[in-house]
């Protein structure tokens, strides 16, 4: 299934301007998601470090 390409049904006009824009927006959104994830991990690690420190004290 993975390498088999299917007939695009395409009965509505997707609009070339809309297609090009969504690829750019999808790319930006994916980068944003990556950084959000990255940031939440950093916050988690820092949070853990702090909680360790306080429990050590």
């Amino acid at each position, binding site marked *: *299934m*993975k390498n088999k*390409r*299917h*007939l*695009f*049904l*395409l*009965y*509505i*006009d*997707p*609009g*070339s*301007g*809309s*297609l*090009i*824009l*969504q*690829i750019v*927006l*999808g*790319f*930006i*959104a*994916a980068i*944003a*998601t990556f950084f959000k994830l990255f940031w939440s991990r950093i916050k988690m690690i820092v949070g853990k470090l702090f909680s360790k420190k306080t429990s050590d004290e």
Partner: protein
Amino acid sequence: MQSKSSFRDPSGFIFIQKDGIYRQINNNYKMHYDHLMNSGLYSTLIEQGLLIPHEEVNSSIATQHNDLYKVIKPQVIPFISYPYEWSFNQLKDAALLTLGIQKIALEYGMTLKDSSAYNVQFYNGKPVFIDTLSFELYNEGNPWVGYRQFCQHFFAPLALMSKSDIRLNQLLRVYLDGIPVDLASNLLSFKTYFNWSILAHIHLHAKSQKRYGNKNINTEKINNRMKKEYLIALIDSLESSIKKLHWEPKNTEWADYYNDTNYTENGVQHKKQIVEQFLAKVNPKTVWDIGGNVGIFSRLASDKGIPTICFDIDPAAVDKNYLEVKKRNEKNLLPLLLDVTNPSPNIGWENEERESLLSRCRSPVDMVFALALIHHLVISNNIPFDKISSFFGKISKYLLIEFVPKEDSQVQRLLSTRKDVFPQYTRDHFERVFSTNFEIVESQKIADSQRVLYLMLNHNFALS
């Protein structure tokens, strides 16, 4: 007979028989339908109540046998409503349903090949997806074909309603394929350029369409560029952008509406009692409440399990009513936006694609409420009694109507800014004129007021 609203998609069409509504699936959709049913996507969507369930029936019932693959019988939605009849949060929930389904579909190797708001209906108090043939197999690398349509049908109207004016949803009545993004871009204020999601999905979208609209683009190249993670990120970002769009009636012309009544507590209670009595007498199977505001009286019917539609002209009242339906998880009440002096017309191809309010009223509704409405129709809109009586005669079997006399403070308020050209606005004349279409079964005066509630029976049903 093929449904007048089902002809654009070559995958199949809806047809109507005496015993119900069916959907023909054509051979060209076989691979997609089989995947929908066998991959587990269909059962997941049904379990979550997101898609309308159907059963496969003997295809001998089909009317067009060329290209026929299967016939399915979807569950029937009792009343079809349209996006220009929905309030802000109804349209927002329909948008979120569409995106939610697209996300689940991708998990099962499918994608939505369109994202029309007409694929969504309100049933049992919730939006549900009704187009079983909207799913197609997903090819990794392909962008979302329905993105443009999603922006036109959902994002643009919601952004306009939220950021410019709530009444701009009425543009959906003119633009059946959704509000063009360049028009939305022109109507939105400069401030919205600083809102990332509106900038991206409306303003840049409009510019991109203008730039590439007439150019020959290598679609083969485009169709390999959208990695699946980009697509999922795009859908996620659309979802969070839609969630961030809000509309509150505060600080608008609708703001004071709710405190603006002139009943005493005793009067309201008495009015409710009379409505309850009339309901018990008629025991209707369906109720329409015209001008029902936030649905206080509609709920007297819907709480008894009677399917009820509460129409109102005020987008704030309809939205408040819908949020209450959601909060109370009500299944029998459908709030809809309607200007009764200009109800939804027949529109679209051959004026038959989207039906008018009256065409959707296949036979008169068992019971229609017209409470605190008559003075707005006569005094504010100059509609004579005979026209009002004739309209209700078309849509109702039993009519529960409130007469608000000239002495009433609300009528005085309406008359304060205009010349009184209504010498015949009297209770006697009202009764005489309505008697041409109805038999007055009973009337009761509401306590602490001059108002009278009438229960009337349409002459066409008097003997049955």
